[in-house]
């Protein structure tokens, strides 16, 4: 199932990048609190990205790179190996 997990992450990362531009707001000039709505989308989206990256770093770091999926959970906190 390793390949399925990888595929999921690749799909997720691509979707995150593609939606960095709010295509559904194309041509929209609605102003909210002094800024165009699409700039608010941008702000929200990058904050979301940061949160997802943090989650990825906690839960799945190593996927597709480190060989043994089963061992990854332990490899994340080796004794005294991290600063």
């Amino acid at each position, binding site marked *: 199932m390793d390949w399925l997990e990888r595929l999921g992450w690749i799909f997720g*990362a691509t979707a*995150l*990048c593609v939606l*960095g*531009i*709010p*295509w559904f*707001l*194309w*041509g*929209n*000039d609605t*102003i909210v*609190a*002094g*800024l*165009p709505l*699409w*700039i608010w989308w*941008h*702000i929200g*989206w*990058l*904050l979301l*990205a*940061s949160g997802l*990256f*943090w989650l*990825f*770093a906690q839960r799945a*770091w*190593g996927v*597709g*790179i*480190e*060989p*043994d999926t089963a*061992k990854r959970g332990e*490899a*994340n906190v*080796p004794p005294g*190996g*991290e*600063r």
Partner: protein
Amino acid sequence: MTLEIQLAIIVGYLLLALVIGLVAYRLTERTAEDFYLASRTVGTIVLLFTTFATLLSAFTFFAGPNLAYLYGPEWILVMGVMDGLIFAVLWYVIGYKQWLLGQRHRYVTLGEMLGDRFASKRLRGIVAGISLVWLFPYVMLQQAGAGTALEALTEGAVPYAAGAGLITLFMILYVVLAGFRGIAWTDTLQGAFMLVTTWVALLWVLAVVGGPGVATSGLEATASEHLALGSAYYSPQFMLSTAITIGFGVAMFPQVNQRFFAAGSKKVLKRSFALWPILCLLLFVPAFMLGAWARGLETGINVAEIEAGGNVLPLILAEFTPTWFAALVIAGAMAAMMSSSDSMLLSGSSYFTRDLYRPFIESTLSARREDVIARVGVVIFALSTFVASLYNPATLFELGDAAFSGFAQLALPVIVALYWRETTRTGITVGIVGSQLFYLLSVFTAVPTAYAGWSAGLVGMGLGLVLTVGVSLLTAPAADEQRAVYFEALEGD
């Protein structure tokens, strides 16, 4: 009076940087790994900001706000996708893997990493050579930017050539002395400083004009089309092509790519990765919104002035903030350009000494002598780009854009090699050389620069991918290739 304040701020900054450099010099071991990578000990904040500082370029403070002024603030989205998202993903995909390989095999440059896997001195040389070809105009661009800014700031009292020359001399002194550790420290100081001053500048201007609502209404009255997402200038093809090529290009820029080797631990990489989008958000939104809003404010700035090469950011600061503050921001922006160049010089020199000089000219180079050659390389590189900057042939943006797309051509063949065991030496060599040739032809000859709105840079990346995979499938690996080297038991820490 104004002039004195500005010069005092610039000189003060340079002296501070020099002190930091001296402290770093005292801590430096006389080895290439320490000179180039601070012996792989860099922590989260320093890694984050030193990578960030390389983004604090002439584009962020001058060309970018100018474009936002002329065409609207959509560049914020382009920067968000390229730096905040695409580069962040590559931070993991390329960066983490490179870091692990660097830990295990002590690689210092990209060319070294590829040359080892494919047992090819030639490939190593090609990657370094291509990188230096693109790095050169980009360093030149930073020097030209600094020269122009100094001239404008002092209203001609410091002429262009003198300004660019002074900056060059200082850079040489600094890089030769301080090495990566010193550069990373000043980057951190500078990144934090510029982030704060950009926000203060934004809040200051907004406080004077009466808040973002008023500023946006002004823009609506002057150029309402700038508030709607997209325009003839900002087509979807343009925005995506730019974001993708530059995003991948950033990861292959020597000074950025080399930072993937410098992290102190896995935890440092993880933290920087998660914080990265926020840093991009905090920098680009205020810098570019200042440019965009300037269009609708009652100022002495006009479109013709900006189109003719004027910079909107210094002008709007001069209009709305006290002289000392405007000088502080401009001095900071110049220092930022300089710090980008510092890093590029150092990386450029490492590519030259490790991947060209040592393998091809003097293979028996001692560690002490490599350290000397590395520093000589810095001097030669900086002086050459300075001379070129005196004849500055094209606009800042065109040059910068060409360099990023040029580096972007390297990204996909490298990713394929990192993740696909079947990649062959011939495959990756053809992929790299083929895409570079195609892109160079589009820059310098009649080969089209756009295909239905998509840039030649993006098309070239596709070509590089197809060539690398296609030729690898058609050819057998050479006997001495180390096909397992990127895959065998890679584990963090």
